């Protein structure tokens, strides 16, 4: 390329996706630099196995490389789409291989996570880092038992019934906790979006 390699660090999602669509491996590399850590972390959270999490992360980026046309900005932001690909593929893997992760991790990132303050953290965009902070604080404010059922539902893909079995809690209690957790998060995030439009 005339003038040497182009620095893609500042490319926004739209340009990165266009670059990937145009078969530019440097755009794929930049996409990985932006979101690879998050994609890997989501997979690791579900699978609790670094080797499998690497496999899923590879699959997610290769899927994007092959079929970037599946992404539509009107259906959500790139980061949440990529993260959901990682989550869904990881849960598929859990089910397909009948993998039972060692124990059930039920913790979320907490408000004191060092990565929130790390300027070299996964999100190059300040806005996304702030959003992540608000989300983590909202989850942090939930009672521990609501955080736990939310985690099992989202990261393990468990049904109410499965969560009740895993925790040894009555089904009705699990349903209530999950509903309250989502309602409170919704309220907190909508409140934040008003105060941080």
């Amino acid at each position, binding site marked *: 390329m005339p003038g040497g390699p182009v620095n893609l660090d500042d490319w926004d999602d739209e340009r990165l996706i266009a670059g990937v669509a145009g078969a530019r491996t440097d755009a794929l590399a930049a996409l990985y630099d932006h979101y690879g850590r998050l994609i890997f972390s*989501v997979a690791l959270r579900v699978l609790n196995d*670094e080797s499998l999490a690497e496999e899923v*992360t590879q699959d997610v*980026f*290769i899927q994007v490389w092959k079929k970037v046309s599946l992404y539509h900005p009107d259906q959500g932001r790139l980061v*949440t789409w990529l993260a959901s690909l990682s989550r869904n593929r990881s849960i598929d893997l859990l089910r397909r291989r009948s993998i039972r992760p060692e124990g059930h991790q039920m913790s979320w990132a907490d408000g004191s996570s060092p990565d929130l303050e790390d300027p070299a953290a996964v999100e190059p965009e300040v806005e996304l880092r702030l959003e*992540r902070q608000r989300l983590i604080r909202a989850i942090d404010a939930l009672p521990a038992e609501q955080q736990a059922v939310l985690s099992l539902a989202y*990261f393990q893909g468990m049904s109410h019934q499965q969560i009740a079995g895993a925790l040894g809690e009555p089904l009705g209690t699990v349903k209530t906790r999950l509903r309250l957790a989502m309602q409170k998060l919704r309220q907190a995030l909508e409140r934040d979006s008003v105060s941080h439009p």
Partner: protein
Amino acid sequence: MIGERHVLEMLPAYALGSLDAEEKSGVEEHLGECPACQRELEAYQAVAAQLPLAVPLQTPPPRLRQAILDRAGQVSPASRRSGARAGPRPALLQRLGRSLRAPAPAWALVGVALLAVVLLGFNLVLLRQVASPPASAFRVIQLAGTDSAPQASAWMVVSADGRSGTLIAQGLPALPPGQQYQLWLNRNGQRASGGVFSVDAAGYASEWVYTPVPLADFKQFGVTVEPQGGSPAPTGARVLAGGG
């Protein structure tokens, strides 16, 4: 007004995929006819979509980046734009090209037009913008998502001789076991089934459509949710509609 018929209390769990099959089916039945609950669901889906951002961040091994780039390098440019690619699911335009197996020479024009789209790396959305395809080659009809599936969209590509075509749909919700989508064709008030289909995890489907009478005669197209195998007439929520 939100009344007790609504399924509001189940929507948070529905957005997380935590309902059992029976509950899920009941919620979906209600969602098909209740815009208020659909709006509520969208709010919870927005929350669910953000949840992975709250995962504790871990650092992947440095080798992972290069491994991904190496694998990407093995996906040759040719296989990204034609049918040679190995992978679990062929891409949209591959499937389209494979589906449009009409012998007529006019299909060469279709192939050229589609290949041009792929070469340019355009988004699926641009399929509808293929610049002035020869009128004799094919007809593209866009279907829009209804209130039951506002994220959905589809294209019906009808062959030059009007006898066959392909439906390409995206953004459709995955259905529970025992249900499928069914395509309906309408001409002069007469309705015919265009076949049943399911979507993959990404909400995508492409289906070969063939009818005894010329497909080109049908002006209106719709897709509804039906029991597995389809119904003699539409019974479930309409998720896509278009034509003209």
